[in-house]
């Protein structure tokens, strides 16, 4: 079941995506953000909260002078470590308690700072490598069911209720659990602390909540004999911090898009570009699969018209991810089943798009998202639409399958809703398991022509963006009809230029710099294969 598409156009799309992302990459390299600096501290082991629940990483970064900040928090913090002889966490707590300030250590030589930091940088990277190795060991010992991997969300607001729901869903057949965040967390410029039991439309992402869910899923993985993956959200204002916490707590997937926050959450574009890059470097290293958010183009505008924008965004997301060292098999590009159920032959268009994505990104663990926009309170019809979505997914060999809920648009799923949803998917995917292998597309038929048209339109869109420049294109509302200014939106005050001598020890290590743990394990530095082919 293959569509005839012109590989020349696909190649040109990739070249255009590279020319779109290249200048943004140059900008990223000259800048950092408060979230990147806070994640450096988190990776070093700084954690906890000070008075008024202010996370200690925020407290430390916010207290830096503009000059110190421009050289990266690592140098100032390293000086503190060198002078006090404390471990990072203890130094953070001492600063929070007011017993010392980083400004007190300004005179400590920089070499001492670097020296004092190195063992902790090394230990942190070792810990992340250990987490990755744990995952690999479990995955080989506890094999997953064949894809599409059934992915369900839990979202009660209470991490302990979420745990109950997650375990029940795994018993029913779920392979991936995503803990939806409390609505609005993407706009918080800090990560909340500790276990949480109150949230709206979801549960706060905190390191302790990650730990609680990871432990529960590890236990049920052993019992079921298959490894269950855990997902959260590295999006919003704390992308790299969430990526750090996820690396340390062995999450397996993170929602992470290069443009979603800009367009749909009005987060500053410079902030987002810088944050997504560092978070993806971490994801690459920790073996985390990202899920991109192209479904949002389809839910906020007409799904038939937006198909080329989805494909164009997939090419851009792929390029940004490659530049951060991610291999194809960690890039879960998104698509969704959102065409109106009233449209005649809408199913044909859905199949065209899903198959087109599969062929263009053959190694990517594609993330296929269920109908939401056209779901109403009619749970019976909703269950049917979900069934067609399930059929499309298994036919076109999607990898990550977010199960649609019959109660979508009514409430966050009940325990029973999830069970019905998983049964729906299991039935369809079993009864039609090899359907895609048995059929061919009619040459020049509706499906093939639709796929070809979407591909051509995506190329035209990418060309337009390449001509304008990505930031200008976003300002001109080329994506999703939303206009965002380069210096507008949330979080812009947390973006700063790197001064001469800026140092981020983790970035240096992950890039394959002098202290890189990747150096020995790879032939080329950086680039699209990075550390990834050694598995």
């Amino acid at each position: 079941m293959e569509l005839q598409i012109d590989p020349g156009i696909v190649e040109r799309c990739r070249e255009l995506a590279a020319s779109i992302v290249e200048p943004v990459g140059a900008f990223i390299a000259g800048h950092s953000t408060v979230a990147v600096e806070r994640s450096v501290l988190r990776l070093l082991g700084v954690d906890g909260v000070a008075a008024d629940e202010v996370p200690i990483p925020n407290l430390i970064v916010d207290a830096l002078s503009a000059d110190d900040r421009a050289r990266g928090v690592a140098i100032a913090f390293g000086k503190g470590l060198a002078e006090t002889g404390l471990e990072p966490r203890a130094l953070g707590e001492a600063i929070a308690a007011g017993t010392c300030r980083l400004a007190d250590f300004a005179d400590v030589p920089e070499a001492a700072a670097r020296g004092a930091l190195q063992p902790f940088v090394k230990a942190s990277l070792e810990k992340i490598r250990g987490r990755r190795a744990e995952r690999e060991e479990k995955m080989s010992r506890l094999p997953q069911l064949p894809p599409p991997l059934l992915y369900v969300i839990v979202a009660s607001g209470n991490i302990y209720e979420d745990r109950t729901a997650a375990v029940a869903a795994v018993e029913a057949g779920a392979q991936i659990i995503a803990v939806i965040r409390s609505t609005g967390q993407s706009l918080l410029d800090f990560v909340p602390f500790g276990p949480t039991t109150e949230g709206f439309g979801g549960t706060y992402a905190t390191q302790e909540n990650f730990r609680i869910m990871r432990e529960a899923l590890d236990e049920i993985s052993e019992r079921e004999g298959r490894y269950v993956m855990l997902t959260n959200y590295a999006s919003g204002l704390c992308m790299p911090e969430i990526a750090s916490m996820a690396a340390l707590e062995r999450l397996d997937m993170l929602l992470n898009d290069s443009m979603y926050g800009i367009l749909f959450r009005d987060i500053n574009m410079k902030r987002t570009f810088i944050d997504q890059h560092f978070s993806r470097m971490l994801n690459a290293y920790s073996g985390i699969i990202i899920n991109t958010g192209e479904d949002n183009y389809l839910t906020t505008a007409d799904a038939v018209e937006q198909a080329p924008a989805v494909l164009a965004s997939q090419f851009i997301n792929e390029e940004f991810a490659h530049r951060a060292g991610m291999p194809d098999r960690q890039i879960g590009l998104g698509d969704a089943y959102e065409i109106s159920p009233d449209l005649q032959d809408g199913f044909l268009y859905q199949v065209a798009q899903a198959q087109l994505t599969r062929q263009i990104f053959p190694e990517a663990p594609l993330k296929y998202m269920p109908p939401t926009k056209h779901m109403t309170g009619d749970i019976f019809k909703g269950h049917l639409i979900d069934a067609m979505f399930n059929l499309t997914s298994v036919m076109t060999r999607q990898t990550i399958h977010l199960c649609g809920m019959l109660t979508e648009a009514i409430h966050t799923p009940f325990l029973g809703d999830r069970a019905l949803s998983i049964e729906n998917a299991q039935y369809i995917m079993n009864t039609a398991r090899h359907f895609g292998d048995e059929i061919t597309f009619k040459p020049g038929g509706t499906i093939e022509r639709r796929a070809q048209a979407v591909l051509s339109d995506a190329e035209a869109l990418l060309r337009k963006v390449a001509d304008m420049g990505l930031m200008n294109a976003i300002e001109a509302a080329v994506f999703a009809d939303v206009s965002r200014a380069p210096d507008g939106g949330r979080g812009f005050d947390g973006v700063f230029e790197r001064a001469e001598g800026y140092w981020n020890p983790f970035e240096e290590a992950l890039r394959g710099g002098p202290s890189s743990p990747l150096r020995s394990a790879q032939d080329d530095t950086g680039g699209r294969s990075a550390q990834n082919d050694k598995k």
Partner: protein
Amino acid sequence: MSNVIKPYGDATNDGKVQLSFTLPIEWSEAADEAARQLVAKMGFTDVQVVEGRKIATGFSFFVVYGSTSQSIDFATIKAPSAKTHAMSMEEIDAFVQEKLGRKIRIAGACIGTDAHTVGIDAILNMKGYKGDYGLERYHSFETFNLGSQIAVDDFVKFAKDHAIDALLASQVVTQKGSDIKNFTALAELLEAERLRDRVVLICGGPRVTNLMASELGYDAGFGRGTVPSEVAAFVATTLAGRLTPGGK
């Protein structure tokens, strides 16, 4: 004239109702019986547990049918609709031109932490919903779509700064009553700022009803399935009515 009704299965007044629910017990024949007795306690007769099964350790799912002994007199039901003035886009544009002689300034937002703009976009975006154009396409409306996660304070300030005639507040997330809290906060702040009587205040969302809206102090509420012209007609006729002495 009373009109007493019961649910209709396949015969008048048979009272047939279908229920489905989960109980936190392991499935067994006793679990089926527990489900049956629970539904009987709800007042249903002729209860049949047509499906009962394990869905997870310690959880069972049931589908149950029963007949209700309850009935309702439909003649006593009052739930006024805000969708009383059916007009097309062209008719609304002409109506506003004639009665107001200027554009209506309308602002919409998903208030509080709600990030789901699907409802507000369906009403405001040019594209519209179900083939009914959105308010951005009307000549008679100047539209401001503030998008998602707009704090109530900011929404009110925007209304004040931009001399807004009509406010559309949308809430999709209803968990723990967050929608009611946000709607209430908006109505109260408008009162406190002495703006309430100067604007047409409307709420919308899949769980919103016009009855609920009036209880919260809104001029109207629009629920699932609402098309833009219904909202536009309500705003236009309400504003026009306020210009008429004694009208509101």
